[in-house]
């Protein structure tokens, strides 16, 4: 069993949706994570806040977002246990952020003592 990070990339919900809509997304996300945890495949995870964020550049200048050229950025991630990248991808497919056009899920194997990183 290996660990994979499922990284959510999406727009700042606060800018595009009502509080009720955000609450509905929240529930969907919690149900999605709960479903993975109910299979004993959840390791850890957290959401990342969009407000009061900073970007530090190579010349040490500090800016408040945007975080990249695209408006979708990292909104949070969870780490899951899976036998293969394909199984991890199946978990990612259930994530509610994918309902938003342009949003993506990035699936990455966690590097652990493999002397590569």
């Amino acid at each position, binding site marked *: 069993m290996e660990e994979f990070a499922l990284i959510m990339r999406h727009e700042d919900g606060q800018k595009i949706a009502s509080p009720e809509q955000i609450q509905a997304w929240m529930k969907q996300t*919690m*149900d999605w994570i*709960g479903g993975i*945890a*109910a*299979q*004993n495949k959840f390791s850890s995870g957290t959401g990342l806040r969009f407000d009061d964020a900073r970007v530090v550049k190579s010349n040490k200048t500090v800016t408040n977002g945007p975080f990249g050229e695209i408006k979708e950025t990292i909104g949070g991630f969870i780490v899951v246990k899976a036998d293969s990248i394909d199984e991890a991808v199946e978990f990612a497919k259930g994530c509610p952020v994918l309902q938003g056009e342009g949003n993506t899920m990035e699936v990455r194997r966690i590097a652990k003592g493999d002397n590569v990183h």
Partner: protein
Amino acid sequence: MEQQQLIPHLFRTEFRKITAVLCKTFGIEHLEIAEDLASETFLSALETWTYRGIPENPVAWLYTVAKNKTRNYISRNQVFTEKIIHQIKHDVTESEEIAIDLSDKNITDSQLQMLFAICHPSISAEAQIGLSLRILCGFGIDEIANAFLTNKETINKRLSRAKEKLRLEKVKIEPIDIEFAGDEEINQRLETVLTTLYLLFSEGYYSECRDTVLREDLCQEAMRLTEILMENQLTNRPTVNALYALMCFHSSRFDARKDETGEIILYHDQDETRWNYELITKGAYYLNLASKGNRISKYHLEASIAYWHTHKADTSEKWETILQLYNRLLQIEYSPFAALNRTYALSKANGKQIAIVEAEKLNLTENHFYFTLLGELYTNIDDKKAKQNYERAFALAKTLPEKQTIQKKIDKL
């Protein structure tokens, strides 16, 4: 009270106090000596009271005899005495006589310290529970064997191995553990203590043992030991209150869970007038106290789930809240039981179709509750599949009451 009932009653309440105090005085590596002296005290009571009648103050009589027996033991066993005197030098007066302090305060302190000493990560959870039952609850070996559905030899072996381990580890049960330990240290040790108390309670609540009185006793003892933690301000923490609240909510349904023949009554079919509302109110009080911390433990989540179950009405708010609590609980700690209950809550909150898809992923095909759940979910959606799943559950169920409950569901289809 007649002597026949009095001695077992006193054994249950006083044996543990005498043992705890002696053990605190001698050090945990001499746990067996403490236990023997306490046992001999009761043997004397049995012999003496039979001929001379019950003394006016039986408890004071027991304490005096325990003190005398301890003094005699100390004066007769020079080697032991030297070891003890060496260890507890600071407690010994010039006359070099060990004071056996059986005051209420020292009894409570000793029991609290014994609780921390016994619930030590170096010994297995099973052994911790066994030792707690013996030393802190005054259970007989046969009662412990009964509760664990095993024989006396197994329990005796398990307990002596655990005592040996404690002796080797020389687990300290000095006041320093609690009074001078840092916050973090108390929290860490408390974690093990709470796990043991939680398991002790579950042993009573979920045990397949047929003896209802014994099972109820286990639950009550787990609650009493949790109360000891709440009586000391250093160990009276939000997680402890949360665990106690959980125990109150569960206990409130103790009578309603089984009918006269011992058959299980499922939550949905329980008669809520048989729930104990005094315990429910008490649970709500402690759950409220538990919310003062800044950390949400699994006990908080389980207590909140149990709280919502004290509302019988099927509202969408109830099941949505329970679902979210299970979602969080499973992130802290997975258990098949929580996974199944979460899926049931999901069916109530989001609908059966969604829950069936999730249930099929759970992969708990050894577990008869899993197939009972699938049977439940498929009922009225695909009754043929419902029946197949109930039949698999029936084949896997181990006890007669469980098989009867499943058979009823098949008949209802």
